[in-house]
Structure formats: C-alpha cells, structure tokens
C-alpha cells in the first residue's frame, strides 16, 4: 500500500466520524502497527575507537543528543558499574558527555554492557597468524585517516564514514580468522540483544543508542529487519 492513501486516511483519523475511524483501523492495520513500533536511532561515536587518542568534538556529540532528546539513551557501559557511579572503564564519550547530559535532562540512560575492544585479533598459528596480524595492522593503518577526517559526531554518522568504518571492520573480521569472526559476531549479537530488550522493556518510546561507529553498520542491517522496531536516522527520531 502506498504512502499517499495512508496520509489521506490519517487526515481522517483524528476526526470525530467513527465510521471513518473504524475503516481506517481495519483497512490500514499494517500501517497503524508501523506507527506503534519503537523508534530506534543509532548514533555512531568514535572517542574510544581502537583505544587510540583522537581529536573528537564531544560538544558536538552533546549538541546532537540534546537536540534529539530521546526518551532512552543506550550507552556502552556495564550496568553494575553504572549503578555504582563507577565510570572508570566507561568510554570517554559516555563518561564525559552522555551521562552528564542525561543527568541534566529527562533522558534516561540504559547501560547496554561494556564492549571489548579486542575482538578483532588475529587467530591461527605460524605464518598464517603472522599474515593475519600484518593484514589487520595494515587495515588499522587506515583508522588515523578516518580519525582526522571525521572528528565530530555529525561527520562520523555520515553515510561515507559509516560505510567505510563498517567495511574496514568486515575486512578485519575476515582477516582475523574464524575465532576472530566468531568473537566479533558474538559481541555485536550481544549488543543487539541488549538494544532489542531495551526496546521491548519500554515499547513505543524514542530510543537513541550511542555505539562505536565500527558496530553501527552491522547493527543497522540487523535492526532494519526487526518487526517490532523502526530504525530511523538520529535526526528523524
């Protein structure tokens, strides 16, 4: 069903004519359900990418999140550490920008668990291990280029940087061998499970999830296929 008749009927949805209202619900049940999906946006961050010191504009990240004003803000931090106010191991952007911002607003922080930074390590033995290590090192050599060209949240979430980050990580996962690929997929799966459970815990809310940009590409594709969530860009939330 196209969007055009749907918009037309929504115009009637708010009027007092019960017949029209009932007709709308019956005829457009699928579309009405779409309206009730939990809206999720992923916001890629870069602050702790590969634990390398980088220039990263936290003020820009804060501005974006403050403007978006999500109901729930998912961040990569362990729940027990968050509840203890222990942010020593939290990523820089979570500790210095997102948590302080949420405390000053109505946003509720939802800890999604801490992500390891070492999933994409080479596996194997002998020359194969050396080759994989060299390949990964070569691919990581491209990271400084991303870091210098994308030093703020807006640029990092541009299609170009997101896809480049995603492809780079896919290549690294391929280069790392079976064990590396499994660890990469398991970590991403775990994060996906946490995001979905956050959405199901409080449905019909506006959720923004701040994730390392290297995971955004992978999570985007999985979340887009989920029936009960609607993945949108952060500026559409």
């Amino acid at each position, binding site marked *: 069903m196209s969007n055009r008749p749907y918009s037309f009927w929504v115009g009637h949805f708010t009027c007092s004519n019960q017949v029209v209202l009932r007709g709308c619900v019956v005829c457009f049940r699928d579309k009405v359900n779409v309206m009730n999906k939990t809206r999720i946006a992923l916001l890629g961050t870069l602050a702790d990418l590969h634990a390398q010191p980088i220039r990263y504009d936290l003020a820009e990240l*804060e501005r974006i999140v*403050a403007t978006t*004003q999500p*109901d*729930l803000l998912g961040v990569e931090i362990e729940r027990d550490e968050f509840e203890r106010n222990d942010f020593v191991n939290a990523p820089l952007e979570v500790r210095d920008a997102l948590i302080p*911002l949420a*405390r*000053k*607003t*109505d946003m*509720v*922080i*939802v800890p999604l668990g801490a992500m390891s930074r070492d999933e994409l390590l080479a596996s194997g033995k002998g020359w194969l291990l050396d080759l994989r290590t060299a390949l990964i090192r070569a691919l990581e050599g491209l990271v400084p280029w991303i870091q210098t060209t994308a030093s703020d949240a807006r640029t990092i979430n541009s299609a170009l940087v997101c896809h480049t980050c995603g492809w780079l990580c896919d290549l690294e996962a391929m280069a790392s061998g079976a064990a590396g690929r499994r660890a990469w997929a398991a970590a991403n799966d775990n994060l996906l499970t946490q995001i979905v459970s*956050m959405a199901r*815990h*409080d449905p019909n*809310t*506006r959720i923004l999830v701040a994730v390392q940009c290297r995971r955004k590409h992978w999570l985007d594709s999985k979340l887009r296929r989920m029936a009960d969530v609607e993945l949108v860009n952060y500026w559409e939330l």
Partner: protein
Amino acid sequence: MPAPNLPIRVLVTSPRALNCAGWVALLRGQPQIEVVGETNALVSQVESDVVLLDAQPFKPQALPFRFLAIVSALDDAVQWLDAGAMGCILDTASVEELLNAIRQVARGDTFLSPPIVKHIVESAVPRHRRSEEEIEPLTERERAVFQLLAQGLSNKDMAQKLYLSVRTVEGHLLNIYGKLRVNSRTEAVLWAVDHIQ
C-alpha cells in the same frame, strides 16, 4: 506547559542578589532551559513556564503563576505548598534535583524534595484509611513505581532506576492515582504510609 522540543522558560525571583545571580548563571548553562529574566520582587504577570522563587525572604502567599519555591526550612515548605507552590525544594538540594524540579513543575507535575515528602508524611493527620478490598490491584510495574514514589524519588529518578522513560513513569503514576483514588503524589505517599508496612 512548554512544547516537548522547546526550552523551558524560567524566571528567577529573589531579592538576594547573590542567590539570584548564582541561579541565573547555573541555569543559563543548562540544555533545554532558557532564563527569561530575573526579578527581586514578586510580580503579578510573567511570561515564563516556571518561576523559580527564593521563598525565604517572602511570606507564603498565593501567586498567580506556576512556581517552584526554594525554602530553607521544612515547615516553610508546607506553608508554600498550601499557598499553591507546584514544587518545593530545600536550598541544600543538588543541581540535579533543582533541574529535575524545574522540568517536573514545567510539565504541570508536583515536585517535592525527599526530606519534604518525609516531613509531610510524618506530620500529616488525620489520615483517611480505605480498606484494601476497595483498591484495584496494581500491576507489577505499577508496584515498582509506587515503591519508589513512596521513597520520595522524582519521576526522573524513578525512570532511571527502572530504566523506563519519564513519560512511561508518568503514565504509571496516573494509573496508580486512579486506582488508589488520590489526586497527587503527596496523597499517594500518604496512602502508602497508611497501608504499606
């Protein structure tokens, strides 16, 4: 009530220049809050969503606008609430509590600092008891919200504890008020004190 994406317009009222300047400086740095002015006396008309009132220098009185009173004594809080304050916090409150209070009052809700809630509960007499049979049972989620409400937590703090959105918590509170047949969080807390061991 301000539209969801518009900043909350706050007028600061205090005859004490240092306090006034401090609150204005503090609020100017906060997201989603706009300080629309400062006055050293009570005014009759304001163009703001919330008036932040330094209550200590004034006598409790009804005012024709939505205001949040900052008090230094618990008894003053009760008198200002009687006079129509939408919220009351102690002058020893944290910045976070002040911001929570402003947001909650701007939305039309009541906000009380936990020590004020405790004081009201302890001093409230007489209390009206209702038999348990009259009360529609609360859902598990509503019970969790109610327990935190009885501890004097703000809506934001309850939401953060339960990892729910503030809007969801507000929805649960409305359901709870309906089921307990009370009209405000203060009455709900009183009900809790009467009925929960």
